[in-house]
């Protein structure tokens, strides 16, 4: 594509920013769903739902954490000069 050539990094960052929100929400709902169906299957309402909802929220935050770590790693890899300049200022 004509604009893929110059600003790959912009696109990359745009993608990262767009993924964080949905990751958080989707994990929560998957946890909720797993808990709901396990409860229905085992007849232990409402405990597994609560436990798996917590797992889902934890997984969502872990996703966000991983994503941020990845962005940070990429930022640092870009060049040591930018970091040094910042600390000098």
């Amino acid at each position, binding site marked *: *594509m004509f604009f*893929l*050539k110059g600003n*790959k990094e912009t*696109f*990359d960052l*745009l*993608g990262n920013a*767009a*993924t964080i929100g*949905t*990751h958080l*929400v*989707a*994990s929560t*709902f*998957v*946890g909720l769903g*797993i808990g709901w169906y396990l409860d229905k299957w085992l007849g232990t309402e409402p405990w597994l739902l609560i436990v*798996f909802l917590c*797992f*889902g929220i*934890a*997984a*969502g935050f*872990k*996703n966000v954490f991983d994503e941020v770590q*990845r962005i940070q790693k990429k930022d640092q890899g870009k060049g040591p000069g930018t970091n040094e300049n910042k600390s000098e200022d």
Partner: protein
Amino acid sequence: MAGGLPHPLLIMTELNHALGTHIPNHVWYTWFGMSVLFVLGFIVSRRLSLVPGGVQNLAEIIIGGLEDFVVSNVGEGGRKVFPFMCTLFVYILVLNLMGLVPGFDAPTANVNTNAAMAVCTFLYYNYIGIKLHGAGYIKHFMGPIPALAPLMFIIELVSHISRPLSLTLRLFGNIRGEEIVLVLLFMLAPLVSTLPMYFLFMLAKVIQAFIFFMLTMIYLKGSLEEAH
């Protein structure tokens, strides 16, 4: 159909009427997008020349650019899985942009199309992981601390299952939203208001296809590399 709103014109509905079939619209449009890609691929591969020109030039720019991007991010191992990702990107791009052609609807505005692609991605990266690491693939789910492994296993499982869900919903929401906006604007002020939106949505649709491609790349990278 864009959110139950009356679409001005859909060619495939007319085609269904004419043929007396009951195949859903988004399936028709998916088939159409596939045939466009087949024909393009056929044309490009028939007349390969050392000095690329026309369609071959375009194809080389897209595929070559994407391959460079993948190799710089994933490493040399990325070349092996690149065909899958590139196919996904081109396919989604064509299906997305189809929503901008009058008389056509984007098949990606239907949640089923996206779910199929997301599930394919999910199965593929797990397959690659198991093929490459064997039983050691489970280490990817365990996290760095042995004492916390059972807890991390459940959390990782949930986060892995959430990946196809978030892939599906992001693409679906964006494309469906754009279709609804286009139909609404067309109802309010035909052509005057929709034409400027075309430029915005052309960019947005390319970005969505690229995001799907990039996430697939990140997941494949995760299953290709050693467990941390």
